[in-house]
């Protein structure tokens, strides 16, 4: 390796040692060279989802790990309570969109980095938007949001005829999460490692108090608060939705909870505690976010360059009692509805799109209602917006076989609603449709009947 010219000191002095030098404990396709470093810098695009505690750290870490083309998406505005850890924001920024301020601050301090902010919800973007990125890094705080991105990334995945994932369709994700002194970082390679859905059982269901406890036998401060929040509010304000960010609404709940607590002789209702219960506030500090984001960034760098071995595949961290880190290797659920080859559905060539949609509703694994269906990017039927619905309505009475170009089998994507834990949630599913009685050759002569 030639020595760097003394007249031109390298900005990436430290990173160069990792990317320009051959190594032993590296990925199988590691090609150390200035080209590799430059490719990462100029061509690798990474999306950071979330510009909060994890997102701010991720943007900094990625920018200082050689990634100069980043996008960041976040629908929130900056609040005062963010300032103890979201270091890209100052007091003067309160009220401004997180994504925009974060992008601006990082670009100001690190020259050569380009960050495109998106101040919107993740659902507002076209699915194709997500396909533009080499890797997606998640700094989210909800199961639903993770599920959504996971669905999207896994929808790009295609399989070959032997049910092996096609490498160029794998969209890697690196996901981090924190709570107080605890956190996790994981690598998701759809089709290879478990996706978010494969390991959904890792997330315990949220604690809900039984209604009779709230209404008849409250014992704790939390019971009094949830009574005021979930029951009394509607009784007193029927019609107006409770807004946790409205201080007057919060004060009302606090006052009611305090009254109830006094009535029953229950201690512990404070304004702060009320906020915590109603908003489900998760305590958060800078250090845990820093640790988890850094771990995610390292893995992102390794996926992009193969400069070292990767984490396989789920890291948990707990710093409250001593220090515990552990890497567990979870395995995929081969039948996963999201990252698997897709639920197999066999139909007659005569089945209409409408009939097909009815089948989806009745299918035991899917139970999909309000379906919008696409095939190879083409809209077969869209529930919304009204203009598209009108345009695609006529397809409902046409045979699916014809709408799918008379292929004997192919993958379609369906967006719809399904049941989860007795709640209706939106989902995106991959389906493998095969038509009975049609051989592998798409032959004009074998067109199906009406």
């Amino acid at each position, binding site marked *: *390796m030639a*020595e760097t010219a003394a007249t031109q*000191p390298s900005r*990436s*002095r*430290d*990173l160069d*040692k*990792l990317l320009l*030098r051959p*190594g*032993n*404990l590296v990925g199988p396709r590691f090609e150390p060279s200035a080209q590799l470093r430059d490719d990462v810098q100029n061509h690798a695009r990474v999306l950071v989802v979330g510009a909060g505690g994890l997102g701010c750290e991720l943007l*900094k*870490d990625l920018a*200082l*790990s050689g990634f100069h083309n980043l996008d960041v998406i976040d629908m929130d505005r900056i609040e*005062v*309570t963010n*300032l*103890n*850890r979201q*270091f890209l924001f100052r*007091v003067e920024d*309160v009220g401004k969109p997180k994504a925009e301020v974060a992008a601006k601050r990082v670009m100001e*301090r*690190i020259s050569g980095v380009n960050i495109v902010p998106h101040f919107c919800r993740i659902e507002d973007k076209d699915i194709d938007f997500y396909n533009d990125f080499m890797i997606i890094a998640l700094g989210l705080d909800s199961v639903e949001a993770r599920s959504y991105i996971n669905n999207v990334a896994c929808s790009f995945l295609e399989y070959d005829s032997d049910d092996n994932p096609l490498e160029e369709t794998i969209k890697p994700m690196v996901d981090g999460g924190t709570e107080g002194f605890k956190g996790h970082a994981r690598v998701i390679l759809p089709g290879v490692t478990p996706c978010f859905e494969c390991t959904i*059982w890792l997330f315990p269901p949220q604690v809900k108090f039984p209604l009779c*406890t709230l209404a008849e*036998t*409250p*014992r704790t401060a939390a019971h009094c608060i949830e009574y005021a929040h979930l029951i009394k509010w509607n009784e007193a304000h029927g019609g107006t939705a409770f807004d946790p960010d409205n201080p007057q609404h919060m004060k009302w709940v606090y006052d009611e909870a305090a009254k109830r607590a006094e009535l029953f*002789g*229950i201690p512990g209702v404070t304004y*702060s505690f009320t906020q915590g219960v109603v908003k489900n*506030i998760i*305590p*958060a*500090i*800078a*250090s*845990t*976010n*820093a*640790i988890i984001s*850094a771990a995610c*960034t390292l893995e992102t760098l390794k996926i992009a360059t193969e400069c*070292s*071995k990767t*984490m*396989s595949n789920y*890291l948990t961290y707990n*710093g409250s*009692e*001593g*220090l515990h*880190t*552990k890497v*567990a*290797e979870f395995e995929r659920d081969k039948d996963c509805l999201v990252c698997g080859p897709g639920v197999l559905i066999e139909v007659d060539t005569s089945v209409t799109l409408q009939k097909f949609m009815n089948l989806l509703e009745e299918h035991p694994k899917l139970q999909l209602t309000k379906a919008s269906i696409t095939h190879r990017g083409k809209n077969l039927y869209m529930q919304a917006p009204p203009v598209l619905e009108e345009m695609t309505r006529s397809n409902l009475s046409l045979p699916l076989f014809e709408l799918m170009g008379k292929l004997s089998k192919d993958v379609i994507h369906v967006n719809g609603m399904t049941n989860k834990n007795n709640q209706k949630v939106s989902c995106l599913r991959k389906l493998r449709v095969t038509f009975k009685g049609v051989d592998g050759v798409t032959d004009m002569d074998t067109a199906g009947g009406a």
Partner: protein
Amino acid sequence: MAEPKVKYDRQLRIWGEQGQAALEKSSICLLNCGPTGSETLKNLVLGGIGSITVVDGSKVEVGDLGNNFLVDESSVGQSKAKCVSSFLQELNDSVKAKFVEEYPEALIETNPSFFSQFTLVIATQLVESSMIKLDRICREANVILIFARSYGLTGFVRISLKEHTVIESKPEHFLDDLRLNNPWLELKSFADSIDLTVQDPVAHKHIPYVVILVKMADEWAKSHGGKLPSTREQKKEFKDLLKARMVSQDEDNYKEAIEASFKVFAPRGISLDLQRILNDSSSEVDSNSSDFWVLVAALKEFIANEGGGEAPLEGSIPDMTSSTEQYINLQNIYLAKAEADFLVMEQLVRSILKKIGRDSNSIPKATIRSFCKNARKLRVCRYRSIEDEFNSPNLPELQKYLTDEDSSGGATFVGRGAMAPPKPLNFHIAVGIYILLRAVDRFAANYNSFPGQFDSATDEDIPRLKSAAISLLSDLGCNGTALAEDLINEMCRFGAAELHAVAALVGGIASQEVIKLITRQFVPMSGTYIFNGIDHKSQLLSL
């Protein structure tokens, strides 16, 4: 300026006002403000640490722009310490930020008393010899010391101080203090006043399980010579007796009683961990003893006398199915006993203080109260001096790590919950990193640069590093053990690079430990944390 309380809301929910006050009163010194030190300090400044002093003699270079967020274009050529400290000041204007443009090694050599002014010193990127010297200085001056280092994809964090005692250890999972196996008079009377055979079905299913278990345990003891269920058959029989009392399937209180019956079977008295603390020689107190040990001495007396083998009652009870009235009454009974125990403890503390020649009011009531509530969860952390560890590490432990005989951790999950047998090589890389991080310092002492620091020399450096490692192992008494060749090569490849992501991670861990040490809440780590960024199988080594 933002109202301080609101800004810190999310962290106040973790360590409370007292913890925050402790942070705001402390002064921290950082040695070397490359990314490792800068990231550590950034997290602490965001959290509201009182004051910081950044010590670094170097100037900002172009290469620093690629790994340190706290320096920017305009600071190239200027003092790195100055640059970092002014960014940190901007990050939180309630922190007092200073800098000293000096190389830490120079201060350690020529001005050791510099360090006595600080609560805690964060020493980053120091080599072996400096670590040993600084450790001696800080131990003398009673200053908390924490080391952090990033080296390529590896690193470590190590706390060093003689002793750190924790009252509010706040363990995540700790058994509640219900005394179902040893109820006191008032609890027994309350249980006696309640009739389990009450006819009204609503009342029947709202009797709290604590009452059910106290009564059933008492009944059992009466017919078993005063003893509680101890064999497997007896425990099953006890649970069956509970089941037999259910009049319908939806009696949650009885279900809770059955689930909680293990609390009746549990042995009385205190845990082995607490016993060890009570038996520690420091519990023989004198005028030099810390407040913690005075409290422990009082606890020892309490347990031996008024406590009847038990620590002061913690006082809180978990939520359980119950009528509001019975729950509140029960709650008050526990609170009353906890208060009574506290009053006894208070007297014991005061008399011990007098005995050792201290003002009997010098330990505040609030501290004694907190001590009583947390008596079963006390922790004492002790750290070997760096010199001792480096010169005579715990050999059996070192050999265990080197041969990887005890491979706990790193199991493979197959499907849902089933586990494959544990894989080996979980300690091997971590201990290799530990040895090599010391070997590179020896190498640097010999050759005036780190292995692989310059592109041209990488190939020659590999065998040199290898022999430095072998001679170190031999000095430590581990002749003949080999380190993975791949790892030696990687260390040369790293060439002492300070990668931002690794620095941020190591710095994050170090900052978290600092918070635990200063707030005196939660339990700081023990031993040396070796960060393994190669496959993330990091480990804690107790040497």
